[in-house]
């Protein structure tokens, strides 16, 4: 079976727009760090998660990939959860 190369159109403008959005989120994170202590970790984790999803979804193109690849990538997160849980349990955080 021959692998199919997708001759896609020029998406450079779309990628630049995404990068600008990611930069704004990063600036916002740093600004939050200096201006507020209100529930800072929770807000930073949410913003970091948004950046993470955007890079994985659009730059890594996972949003448009087959389900098998999505499954494999999510598997990494699922496998990480027990480890993190045990670690925090050991530290009596949860």
């Amino acid at each position: 079976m021959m692998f199919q190369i997708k001759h896609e159109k020029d998406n450079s403008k779309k990628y630049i727009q995404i990068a600008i959005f990611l930069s704004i989120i990063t600036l916002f994170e740093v600004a939050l760090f200096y201006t507020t202590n209100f529930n800072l970790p929770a807000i930073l984790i949410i913003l970091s998660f948004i950046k993470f999803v955007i890079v994985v979804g659009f730059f890594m193109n996972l949003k448009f990939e087959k389900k098998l690849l999505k499954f494999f990538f999510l598997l990494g997160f699922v496998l990480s959860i027990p480890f993190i849980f045990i670690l925090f349990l050991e530290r009596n955080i949860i």
Partner: protein
Amino acid sequence: MSNFSTTQDHESTGISNQKLAMWLFLSSEVVFFAALISIYLFYKRLFALGDLTPEGLFDIPFTSVTSFVLLMSSLTMVLSHNYYEIKDYEKSKIWIFATAFLGIVFVSGQIYEYTEFIQSGLTISSSIFGTAFFFVTGIHGLHVVIGVVLLIATGSQMGISNSNRIYSLSIESLALYWHCIDIVWIVIFTAVYLIP
């Protein structure tokens, strides 16, 4: 042509084996770094260096700039891949070298940061916090260095190759690897530097 088609001979999932292997590798990287970051968070408060706390040491504006550089390297990498897909090999090559340059800038920033910390008294053996910090950021930095070497090698090959097609999967895999480095840093920057 023959080199290109032989890589697809055993494909049975509808996805090229190289791509599948790359995503499995990235999945294992996620587990690996999740473990490292968890260890850092676990040991973050275990330091014995007087005033050398994470809050007192970290230069957030400087690290924000290096984080921004790495974020922009993801943009240059995706642009390189984009131009490769539309067969504009010259632009693809320029952006791949731009990515390598930004990677070098990031690593240089990390070396400068390490120098500052070591002068302040924080070393890999000075405290458990130091060990955890240098281990997490150092392993990530090592990944960036490997990525830079691969970028330069691939960019150089593009220039001398007669058939650019055979590098399509290589560039895609390299782009995936580089974006993975970026997303790991997104988490490290938040978990290690920003969260009090």
